[in-house]
């Protein structure tokens, strides 16, 4: 790893911008956030990812100041921000509904926050123009929010919340209202703007693809707790639990019992009368311990004959095929009824499909392809 | 926001106190025994007894009721049609004039409406009586009905009608089988509104009624001009009671229907 790669979370000297210290939030009898601690660093693009009701929005609203923690503290650049009202925080938020003021023009919407700071007229105009340029909205400045498209509204909301140059920008499902194509373009635009302005972004989303694309680190949440906080590639390749593996991307989960087989290598007995599977794991498992094996479909090779050198190979027959254009996913049924997904890239155009329904096939993968998760 | 801030709590309390205290006082003093309305001299229902024996009031009440039933029913039909035209009619010749004639009576001073209708009835030689009051009341209350119904039609999902047409309904059938049942609550509240507007009206009725037909508000007004009287208090209390029972019943019925729908939806969601 070279030193210019941005990884402050690996540096024990780095001072976090935001610290959640044992934060708990209850609404009546319902615990939305359960004794949660988390550090977020300056210039990070941090994603809170989880299903609806997992507490991610509550985290964001606590950062913005619309909710206060029931227990614990939130520290922003060394200062406890619990008593500070939202209008006094150097934190701005981009709302899910965008919350653009319908009675004000785009220009006035962007200037709204600056006017509250009593910014001199010239500076204010310069700042608004700068924001309009940054978000490519110059020609819409005089329009009202209902006179522009959804994608443009999203950019106005972004410009408005960035105008005050906050220490921290919160984005609540910023792309939820856009269609898929526009969403992808906008993701890169967001990253670009984040890089240009050097602002710390915290984004809340339920879309794992979006989180993986934009974020420097992703926190996967469930029921008010953090399941895993790591970079997108680590979340994907090294999920620490079945929940995370299952939530992020597509995965095959095989349940079994592990037996040690030498250095970090284990044998997994997973079904009566089937050859045990081999997998490596850095964490120790005791002999006979229950475990789950998580294998991404794209790491499973499908072939007509048993590959000679394969460490793990099982036989089944093609149950279903999903043609996705760039990829095909094969749903292969094993002898015991389990379905395993295998993905292969369609590298050649209009090639004859190698397999079709009911064909007997072999599935194989290497010892390091699967993640072994102890129960 | 789940809590009421103290400011909102205070303004709501004061506001509702202002709205209700005068009527509560009126009701309390209708049970006053004495002839002097402002001095309490013991509980009694004697004024209600005298009211029941007052033939003039009873006659007027009967006229008022008939006028209200006829005019509100007519106004509901016309007002619903007008609302449909306003929301779904698209462009047609004189649309702005039409919309003006719908909204203007809502704010038009009653003395003007009353005077102009009277002069019309005299001009065409129509004898003043129940018929003329019904015509007059229908005209101004149909506009209220139309506003109530069109506010419901605006939020109505048009694709429901299109689905009905797609499934083979004629436009008239689509209206009868799909639109009408869905906007029915608005139509009913429009009818109720027209009914109470007609019951209440003094000014227009004064202009358009003849000696043969005196309505209750006209009777009350001529009595009240002379000052406060316990008999009028009793009559007012009865009228307030009727309206209160009606409005509360109506709102309970709609509330129960909404609760039922919510429960059904939740049950369906759980069953999934």
């Amino acid at each position, binding site marked *: 790893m070279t030193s210019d790669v941005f990884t402050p979370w690996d540096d024990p000297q780095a001072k976090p911008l935001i610290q959640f210290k044992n934060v708990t939030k209850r609404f009546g009898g319902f615990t939305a956030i359960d004794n949660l601690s988390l550090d977020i660093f300056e210039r990070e693009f941090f994603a809170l990812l989880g299903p609806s009701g997992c507490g991610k929005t509550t985290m964001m609203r606590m950062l913005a100041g619309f909710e206060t923690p029931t227990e614990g503290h939130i520290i922003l650049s060394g200062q406890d921000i619990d008593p500070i009202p939202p209008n006094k925080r150097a934190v701005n938020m981009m709302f899910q509904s965008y919350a653009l*003021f319908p009675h004000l023009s785009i220009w006035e919407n962007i200037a709204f926050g600056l006017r509250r700071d009593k910014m001199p007229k010239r500076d204010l105009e310069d700042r608004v123009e700068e924001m309009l340029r940054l978000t490519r909205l110059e020609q819409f400045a005089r329009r009202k929010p209902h006179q522009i498209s959804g994608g443009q509204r999203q950019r106005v909301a972004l410009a408005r919340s960035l105008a005050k140059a906050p220490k921290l920008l919160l984005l609540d499902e910023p792309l939820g209202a856009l269609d898929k194509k526009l969403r992808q373009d906008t993701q890169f635009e967001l990253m670009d703007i984040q890089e240009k302005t050097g602002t710390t972004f915290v984004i809340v989303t339920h879309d794992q693809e979006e989180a993986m694309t934009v974020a420097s680190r992703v926190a996967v949440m469930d029921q008010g707790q953090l399941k895993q906080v790591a970079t997108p590639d680590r979340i994907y390749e090294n999920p620490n639990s079945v929940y995370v593996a299952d939530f992020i991307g597509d995965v095959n989960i095989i349940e079994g019992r592990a037996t040690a087989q030498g250095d970090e290598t284990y044998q997994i007995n997973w079904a009566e009368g089937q050859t045990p599977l081999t997998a490596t794991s850095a964490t120790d498992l005791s002999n006979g311990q229950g475990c789950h094996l998580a294998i991404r479909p794209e790491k499973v090779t499908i072939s007509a004959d048993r590959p000679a050198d394969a460490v793990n190979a099982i036989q089944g027959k093609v149950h279903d095929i999903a043609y996705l254009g760039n990829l095909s996913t094969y749903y292969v049924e094993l002898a015991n009824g389990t379905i395993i997904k295998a993905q292969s890239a369609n590298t050649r155009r209009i090639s004859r499909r190698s397999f079709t329904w009911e064909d007997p096939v072999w599935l194989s993968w290497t010892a390091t392809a699967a993640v072994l998760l102890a129960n | 926001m789940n809590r009421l801030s103290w400011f909102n709590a205070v303004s709501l309390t004061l506001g509702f106190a*202002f709205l209700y205290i005068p009527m509560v006082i009126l009701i309390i003093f209708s049970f006053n025994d004495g002839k002097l309305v*402002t001095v309490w001299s013991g509980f009694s229902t004697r004024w209600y007894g005298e009211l029941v024996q007052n033939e003039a009031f009873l006659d007027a009440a009967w006229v008022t009721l008939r006028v209200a039933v006829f005019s509100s029913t007519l106004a509901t039909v016309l007002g619903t049609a007008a609302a449909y035209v306003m929301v779904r*009619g698209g462009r047609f010749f004189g649309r702005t004039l039409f919309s003006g004639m719908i909204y203007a009576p809502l704010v038009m001073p009653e003395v*003007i409406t009353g005077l*102009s209708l009277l002069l019309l009835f005299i001009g065409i030689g129509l004898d003043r009586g129940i018929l003329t009051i019904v015509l007059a009341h229908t005209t101004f209350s149909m506009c209220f009905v139309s506003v109530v119904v069109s506010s419901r039609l605006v939020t109505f999902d048009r694709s429901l009608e299109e689905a009905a047409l797609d499934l083979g309904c004629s436009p008239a059938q689509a209206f009868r089988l799909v639109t009408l049942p869905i906007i029915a609550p608005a139509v009913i509240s429009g009818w109720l509104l027209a009914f109470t507007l007609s019951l209440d009206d003094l000014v227009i009725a004064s202009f358009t009624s003849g000696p043969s037909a005196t309505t209750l508000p006209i009777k009350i007004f001529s009595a009240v001009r002379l000052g406060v009287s316990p008999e009028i208090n009793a009559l007012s209390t009865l009228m307030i009671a009727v309206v209160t029972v009606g409005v509360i019943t109506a709102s309970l019925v709609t509330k129960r229907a909404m609760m039922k729908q919510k429960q059904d939806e939740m049950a369906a969601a759980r069953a999934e």
Partner: protein
Amino acid sequence: MGRPGLAVLDSNGRGFVGELMRRAFLIAVPYVWLLALFLVPFFIVLKISLSDTALAIPPYTPTLDLSQGWSGITEFFSQLDFENFVWLTEDDLYWKAYLSSVKIALIATIFTLIFGYPIAYGMARAPEEWRPTLMMLIILPFWTSFLIRVYAWMGILSNEGYLNQFLLWIGVISTPLTILNTNTAVYIGIVYTYLPFMILPIYSALERMDESLIEAAEDLGCSRIQAFWLVTIPLSRPGIIAGCFLVMIPVIGEFVIPSLLGGSGTLMIGKVLWEEFFSNRDWPVASAVAVVLLLILVVPIVLFQRNQQKQTEAEQ
């Protein structure tokens, strides 16, 4: 399916014509009704305002006599004049009454707004499950007879009324206040009876408002009060405008309130018109009064109708 193409065309064609007929009928019925019973009467009022008083039935001349043909019509028009309008300008009772009506309506509207806005705001910010009940509590007095609601204040405001009894009892005053039969009583009566008209449109504007707009304003550095002035008030403006029109326009021509709560000093044009008509039986002058009143109201009525139509279209 399987139907001959011609038959499909035919049935569609007939359906289309039928639909057009039905639409025309649907438009025509309410349209003609309103023309005949709302618009035409105004022209009759206008015509009579140009006629002269007469001791006849009906008590004015000329009356249009179509049996005499064209000469009857020209004769009729030649007799119309602006005498009654000249009379309105000469007797200062009338223009004073117009001015005083407009003044009373303006002041009363402002008071109604001041009282109504906080109530509407409180309702819109109340817990959602309370709102239908609060709404019903606002509507309930509105459904109760207008006359009775005005009457209720007669007992409260009179010299020996409940308000004076109460004030004397707590010792704020030593002699009863004269409120009934003054303009103060008229203001109280107007605010009381027209309050729901102010509250309901403002409430519906406030209730529709997205709560996150307020949060956005606070997030961008507004205090609660600034957010209220900069976001809540401008966004409830259509409601405020509608409410003010709904109160002001009818109040200018109000009759019941000034005649029951007002005194001899309370000059309102609705009352003047009533007396011209019923007491003096001067129909042409009453009509002229109505025509001028209508002219005063035309601008606010058109503005009101525009506001309503704009809102309906915005919602669609």
